[in-house]
């Protein structure tokens, strides 16, 4: 029986559907106190006196701390949330990254609305919130920067002295000879494309519970995609050995972007200081304003092409409004540059990326991480080219896609991890063809004319994407067979909805000849394995899957070697089935895994072959050579009510290539959810700030996640091309589906409104914006 590739039912579900999940907010420890954070009400200013005395007098309040209280005990953030960028990437791109330094609690200045200023600890959250209102802070406002143009103006105030001109990072990438290509081009067009700001918005808000029972025993439960990274940070910032810290990421209610947060350092510190367990649970208003944001880019792009719509060159200068701090440095901007050419053969290319500091929330990765913006820019431009040369967008796409027989395709630039950007596998023209067949493109085109004659504006839009998935630097897995013959997997990558328990068990089950139910997968605990990466960058199946595969394979070899010696059979003539090691073709003679485990146990009774380490346990770390490129093609069919600007998505088709599919049910689920997330980004979600840096929509009434009535059924199909970069041929499936919807929907809207000649250069496409575009086009055509 092979389990990989089967829709094996989820091991996770029984707990979750019965309400027995254990999320951070569900953790209640004896003597536990609850915290609330006082946040800056202004976007930029100097802090004077903080008077917390009235708050401390409130019954039930245990402590109020400000920056003065942590000075000398807790270090500020100075280390960015990524591994150092390789020197050859720095040199090739002229990369400048200014120092990163972020305060945990505001000391002299605040740099954004919502920046933590003080923390209250009280008997419960109700009292803690009462106490917040009693803390008096003397703020003196400074001129703020609330947009890219303001940040780059000659007379702009400088937010941080170590960041001259507010430009935190800058780099250039190029391939071929874009200047020559554009000079010789038959046609060219230039446009500005603006990507709105959004926030990940998992249904569970962030949270931390910390308990310090004895020196050397700090235990933390956190909504953390990277528990091992948090441990490293806490070790450095609290001056503790890593061994003294155990981070547990329990059940997590989604989480679409990572990083280490102030509260994840402050709450453990307070637990040590007060000697009581402390729980901090973010509320939704805090989450929308203070979980890090994403997107928010402006692109000035020029594209050069032939009269037949063949794109010969692409140049893009883009700027990211990176907010008050930029802990991920070029992660987003470089992702944008590296994915800008999408699936297209555009050999002449130049891009410059700038990260500009403003008095807003940090701009960091959220599902898609820079690729959503890149894809929106690229796919909008391709459709603009099609309109200019008077061809169907599907046709122009086919003309520009990298041909299947040219794979693997070297894009002529470096990836952020130091590897070359090489699309390792896939067949993009065939993927597009399949998507067009699924949606029945030709029939749609004939229906479209008929519907237009009836005054109905329907349109079809295509977006494709690539995703450098499975980012390193490593992921670990420990696989053990215990004395009962049961298999245990410890993973350094922890889930927040991705079904690790089920999928990793499938991999191990196949390797060790057992059923997935004979395998227990544990993750999200730094006590399980020495090194762990976490879950981000569509990496879990690729990196954790490969690590589990490798560890399980090595363990299988050991089991066979031991059994071979016991049975006096050559190990290569043995097989494992149903948990029994037996000579191939003789299934009823053999040893159970429990018997092998007992033979392998240390001690005088050990029956191990000479020189073999005792125990049935293998730890493997998978180190990917570079990312592996998954891809997908999406087609959206929409209808626009031209009187109101309201948009309905009538159909949505996905053809995905994530290499080896470990569990089709899980992969399809990722596609459905990613598309909904992308529809949110493309149509509904936009974080809005006022001119003075106040967040205008910090509630779920005003920050709009798509609901069931906003998302159609998602029709998913697969085109599988195995990755050559890992043993099972896996490519990431978690994020790509979220990347394309804004572009697919925008292209469909433009298509629907072709009689008016509307162009879309902004995401999200809200009804009010769309109505204005239609009205302006109507006025022009009049």
């Amino acid at each position, binding site marked *: 029986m092979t389990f990989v590739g089967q829709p094996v039912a989820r091991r996770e579900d029984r707990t979750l559907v019965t309400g027995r999940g254990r999320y951070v907010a569900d953790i209640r420890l004896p003597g536990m106190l609850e915290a609330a954070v006082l946040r800056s009400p202004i976007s930029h200013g100097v802090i004077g006196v903080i008077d917390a005395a009235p708050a401390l007098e409130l019954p039930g309040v245990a402590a109020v701390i400000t920056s003065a209280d942590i000075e000398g005990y807790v270090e500020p953030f100075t280390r960015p949330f990524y591994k150092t960028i390789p020197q050859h990437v720095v040199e090739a791109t002229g990369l400048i990254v200014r120092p990163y330094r972020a305060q945990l609690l505001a000391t002299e200045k605040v740099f954004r609305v919502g920046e933590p200023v003080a923390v209250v600890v009280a008997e419960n959250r109700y009292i803690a*919130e009462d106490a917040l209102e009693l803390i008096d802070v003397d703020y003196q406002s400074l001129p703020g920067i609330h947009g890219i143009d303001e940040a780059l103006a000659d007379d702009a105030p400088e937010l941080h002295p170590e960041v001259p001109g507010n430009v935190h990072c800058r780099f250039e990438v190029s391939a071929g000879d874009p200047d020559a290509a554009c000079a010789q081009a038959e046609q060219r067009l230039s446009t500005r494309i603006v990507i709105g700001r959004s926030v990940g918005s998992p249904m569970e808000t962030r949270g931390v519970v910390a308990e310090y029972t004895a020196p050397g025993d700090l235990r933390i439960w956190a909504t953390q995609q990277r528990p091992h990274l948090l441990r490293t940070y806490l070790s450095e910032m609290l001056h503790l050995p890593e061994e003294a810290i155990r981070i547990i990421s329990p059940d997590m209610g989604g989480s679409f972007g990572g990083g280490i947060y102030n509260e994840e350092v402050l709450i453990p510190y307070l637990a040590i200081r007060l000697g009581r367990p402390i729980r901090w649970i973010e509320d939704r*208003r805090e989450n929308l304003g203070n979980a890090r944001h994403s997107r928010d880019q402006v692109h000035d792009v020029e594209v050069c092409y032939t009269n037949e719509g063949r794109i010969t060159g692409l140049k893009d200068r883009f700027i990211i409004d990176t907010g008050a701090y930029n802990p991920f440095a070029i992660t987003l901007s470089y992702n944008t540059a590296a994915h800008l050419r999408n699936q297209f053969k555009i050999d002449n290319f130049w891009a410059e990326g700038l990260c500009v500091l403003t008095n807003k929330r940090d701009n960091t990765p959220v599902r898609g991480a820079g690729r959503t913006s890149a894809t929106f820019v690229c796919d909008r431009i391709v459709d603009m080219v099609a309109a200019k040369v008077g061809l169907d967008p599907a046709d122009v796409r086919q003309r520009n896609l990298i041909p299947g027989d040219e794979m693997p395709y070297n894009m002529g630039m470096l990836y952020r991890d130091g590897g070359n950007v090489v699309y390792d596998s896939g067949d993009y023209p065939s993927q597009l063809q399949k998507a067009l067949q699924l949606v029945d493109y030709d029939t749609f085109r004939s229906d479209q004319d008929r519907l237009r004659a009836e005054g109905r504006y329907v349109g079809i839009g295509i977006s494709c994407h690539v995703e450098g998935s499975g980012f390193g630097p490593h992921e670990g897995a420990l696989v053990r067979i215990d004395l009962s013959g049961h298999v245990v997997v410890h993973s350094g990558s922890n889930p927040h909805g991705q079904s690790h328990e089920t999928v990793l068990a499938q991999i191990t089950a196949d390797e060790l000849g057992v059923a997935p139910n004979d395998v227990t997968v544990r993750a999200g605990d730094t006590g399980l394995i020495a090194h762990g990466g976490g879950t981000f960058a569509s990496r879990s199946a690729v990196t954790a899957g490969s690590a589990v595969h490798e560890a399980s394979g090595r363990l299988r070899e050991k089991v066979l070697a031991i059994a071979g010696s016991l049975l006096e059979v050559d190990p290569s003539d043995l097989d494992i089935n149903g948990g029994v090691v037996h000579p191939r073709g003789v299934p009823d003679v053999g040893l159970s895994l429990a018997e092998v485990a007992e033979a392998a146990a240390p001690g005088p009774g050990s029956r191990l072959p000479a020189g073999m380490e005792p125990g049935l346990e293998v730890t493997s770390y998978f180190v990917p050579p570079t990312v592996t490129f998954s891809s997908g093609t999406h087609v959206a069919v929409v209808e626009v009510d031209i*009187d109101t600007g309201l948009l309905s998505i009538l159909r949505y088709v996905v053809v995905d290539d994530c290499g080896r599919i470990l569990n089709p049910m899980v992969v399809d689920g990722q596609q459905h959810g990613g598309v909904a997330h992308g529809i949110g980004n493309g149509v509904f979600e936009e974080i*809005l700030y006022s001119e003075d840096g106040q967040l205008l929509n910090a509630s779920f009434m005003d920050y*709009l996640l798509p*609901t069931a*009535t*906003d998302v159609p059924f998602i029709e998913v199909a697969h085109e599988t091309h195995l990755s050559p970069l890992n043993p099972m041929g896996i490519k990431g499936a978690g994020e790509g589906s979220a990347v394309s919807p804004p572009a697919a929907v925008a292209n469909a809207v433009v298509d629907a409104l072709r009689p008016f000649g509307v162009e879309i250069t902004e995401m999200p496409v809200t009804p009010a914006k769309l*109505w204005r575009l239609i009205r302006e086009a109507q006025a022009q055509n009049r």
Partner: protein
Amino acid sequence: MKPPPFEYRRAEHREEALGLLAEHGDEAKILAGGQSLMPLLAFRLARPAVIVDINRLAGLDELHMEDGALVVGSLTRHRAIEKMGGIAERCPLIADAISHIGHVAIRNRGSVGGSIAHADPAAEWPVIALLLDAQFEVESATSSRTIAGPDMFSGYMQSGIAPDEMLTRLRFQLPSAGAGSAFLEVARRHGDFAMAGAGVVLRISDGRINDARIGLMAAGLTPIRATDAESMLLDQEPADEVFEMAARAVDPAIAPLDDVHGPADYKRNLAYVLTRRALHLARDRAGVT
């Protein structure tokens, strides 16, 4: 996002509730369905010293037809009316409107009286009240009186109910049989607060319109009756061009505001479009006599 402290008083009978309101005046706030008040408390945007919970009061959840009127207790839940037999046939305007009030879990709990007293111009019941000549019975410890529809909505989220008064009964005069009515609303997502909404009642007799009402929600500080547009319809044939003219004439009566979901001019356009469409729908539904 936890409510601030308050004194909680659960009134067991009407006199007790009115006594508490008399005692605490504008320091007190009535808790009915709580679907508006509780979020305000969670954001700490409302800070009443005393909460008077009226959910136990008997007799505030009535619901019946009487002399061509729909009589509704102030504590009657939206969902009760939604499930009331015959309402969609008798007055589709009401059924249309209720479907836009949040979601079922909100409608199970939220009360009609609470919606009126909250006087949110983006809510459905206030504009229904204007369209259906609603009469509101209010009581205080010492007196009782009836407020007529338009007098109930005195300003942005300001009702005509005095701090010591409690709304007890609402009476909506249903359009006569044969009238057509419709209610259309646009929100960013289903169940969200409206960006615009229009309710219409039309009675057509001998091929002429002899009663026309147009109400707009989310179009200004209060719910609005577009009376000039209504009079343009009177004695006219229910023709497309007449509706177009009347729908255009809504514009001077409204004053929507910019917000994160759209600018005022967009909402003005929505008010026009929805009025026009509601007129068409109401005409289709009207029995022609």
